[in-house]
């Protein structure tokens, strides 16, 4: 099984980063046509008909999201979410590094549909090299007249700013991203109002992921039907999937949505390391409930199949855990991340992530009892759906899935650790009894 490279087409050519290289592959031809000949409604319709679903995690229809923006004369904004920080996800990094102009063209075309005059790329601060590449590409696009005022003689203007974050996972949450972009601490906002109605600087704002926007030029160029020719009915298109963890060839692979998950993990990514077996995997980044190998490997890799299996496709990032990985330790590693990144605004998330870490530490140290596992599960239940954003849920979902599916392993770790504990204690007690 080979890849189906659409977004990563020609990505092996380093010249693609420059505007000449990109134009050599017909780059910006769609932007020129869109600005000269197309109306906002035409573009919007094409995007809606294509069924393109958001590639950042939620999987919401991009065209529908854009159609929620109110019409009329007012300042509207477009934000590209490039704050890729979900453990396991590294596909936006590849897309920005290898083909920055595809993203810029996508943003410029989407800006017509959203009627936005100002666009921002919010890129995580750690992606310094990629932000430099984007800065250079944006400067080239301004120079060539694809950004700025009166683009291609259309009397439309678009300003595009690359905005570097400074290290906070929460800023990938769309309303926290808006706060960060407004120069505040990145705390999520209460929804509604949704950003499409009241977002950046109080104006209607369209927020889309890097990969989502990178899809826009080709959808507008070739049409919704062409796009629907890839993937499944409910998950059209291709997807750049990040595969990592216990596989031989970790990396980004672009495939049609709906291919068997086994092909992604075992063929493209090379399968488990020598002498190991796949035990479980996160199908959509660290916030997706883990699937055991038996549950997940033969499922089609699509939004609907993953949802049906009780997990999610999320950002399209697979982390493979082989039989050498201790699931309780993996749960602790996962929980620690969300505990560290919780912004602290909502109590269930702030306290829930904290207590989950403490309890899981007790589990791996052998100081817990089976009752603690039930308490861990109940804490997860009390986080889910009770916060402004889904950061807490993102810990609760995988942790509760691990406790449920691998309870025996948790109990074994506890038994083993408490035996070790008893072995250390025993001589002291004997001594105590003798005196």
């Amino acid at each position, binding site marked *: 099984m080979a890849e189906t490279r659409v977004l990563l087409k020609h990505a092996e050519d380093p010249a693609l980063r420059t505007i000449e290289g990109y134009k050599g592959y017909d780059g910006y031809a769609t932007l020129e046509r869109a600005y000269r000949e197309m109306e906002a409604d035409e573009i919007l319709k094409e995007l809606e008909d294509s069924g393109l679903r958001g590639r950042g995690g939620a999987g919401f229809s991009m065209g529908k999201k854009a159609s929620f923006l109110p019409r009329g004369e007012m300042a509207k904004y477009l934000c590209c979410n490039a704050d890729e920080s979900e453990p396991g996800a590294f596909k936006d990094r590849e897309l920005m590094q290898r083909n920055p102009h595809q993203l810029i063209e996508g943003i410029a075309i989407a800006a017509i549909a959203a009627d936005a005059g100002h666009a921002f790329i919010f890129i995580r601060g750690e*992606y310094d090299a990629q932000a430099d590449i984007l800065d250079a590409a944006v400067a080239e696009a301004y120079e060539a007249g694809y950004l700025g005022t009166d683009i291609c003689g259309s009397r439309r203007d678009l300003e595009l700013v690359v*905005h*570097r*974050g400074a290290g906070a996972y929460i800023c990938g949450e769309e309303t926290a991203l808006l706060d960060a972009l407004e120069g505040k601490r990145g705390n999520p906002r209460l929804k509604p109002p949704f950003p499409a109605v009241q977002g950046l600087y109080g104006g209607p704002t369209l927020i889309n992921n890097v990969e989502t926007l990178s899809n826009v030029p080709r959808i507008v160029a070739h049409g919704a039907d062409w796009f629907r020719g890839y993937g499944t009915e409910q998950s059209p298109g291709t997807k750049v999937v990040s595969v990592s963890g216990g*596989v031989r060839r970790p*990396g980004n692979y672009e495939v049609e949505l709906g291919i068997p998950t086994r092909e992604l993990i075992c063929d493209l990514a090379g399968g488990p*390391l*020598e002498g190991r077996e796949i035990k479980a995997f996160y199908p959509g980044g660290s916030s997706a409930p883990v699937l055991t190998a038996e549950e997940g490997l033969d499922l089609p890799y699509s939004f609907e199949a993953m949802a049906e299996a009780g997990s999610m496709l999320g950002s399209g990032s697979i982390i493979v855990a082989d039989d050498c990985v201790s699931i309780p330790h993996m749960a602790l590693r996962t929980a620690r*991340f969300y505990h560290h990144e919780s912004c602290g605004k909502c109590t269930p998330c702030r306290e829930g992530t904290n207590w989950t870490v403490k309890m899981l530490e007790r589990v791996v140290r052998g100081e817990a009892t089976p009752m603690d596992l039930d308490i861990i599960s109940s804490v997860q239940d009390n986080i889910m759906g009770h916060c402004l954003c889904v950061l807490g849920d993102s810990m609760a979902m995988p942790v509760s899935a691990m406790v449920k599916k691998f309870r025996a392993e948790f109990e074994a770790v506890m038994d083993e650790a408490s035996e070790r504990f008893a072995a250390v204690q025993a001589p002291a007690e004997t001594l105590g009894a003798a005196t």
Partner: protein
Amino acid sequence: MADFPVDPAVSQGRVPERSPELVPELHEVECPAELREQIETLMGRYPDRHSVSIPALWAVQRLYGWCTPEGIRQAAAVMRVTPAYLESVASFYDLLHTEPVGSHKIAVCTNISCWMRGGDELLDAFRAAAEGQDDVLVSGFECLGACDIAPMASIGERYFGPLEPGEAQTAIDQLLAGDDVLPGKALEKRPLAGDAPSVGGGGDG
């Protein structure tokens, strides 16, 4: 004042010299011209000047090595906001330092994928190699978005991996000598995973 016992819990580090609730005047802060110019240029790019708080703090950090109280006051004077406001932003983000750190920064990823491939051991190796080097800041970091090169580290804001613990010392020596760091392990030089010659930990080539 001097007779009161000092409680380190509340006075450690940063005692503002002046009331932080006031917007400082430019003539009070001796803001270097280049910093002022950078922040003013940035302010022109956004519909609202408050948006430049993170970029302005980046500029302060580039100039002084960390977000110094003086630097924050200078940026606040240019932006016409209170130093307390900028301080609240600086303290929220992991990459902005509100206390002195080494000028060479190394972040070693210890998140799930890197942990599975030896990220903890790599962090230990970097910590040991940087022992006694005050100018090098080594920190364990959350997912840096490069699980394909696990275990990896960000050295001087560039990504390198997959790394062996034995390479930590080499990397730090090269960094301090001003040489190219581990040229063979730079992320930017890697081909797409699907185009790479067959690799893997299994040993079947």
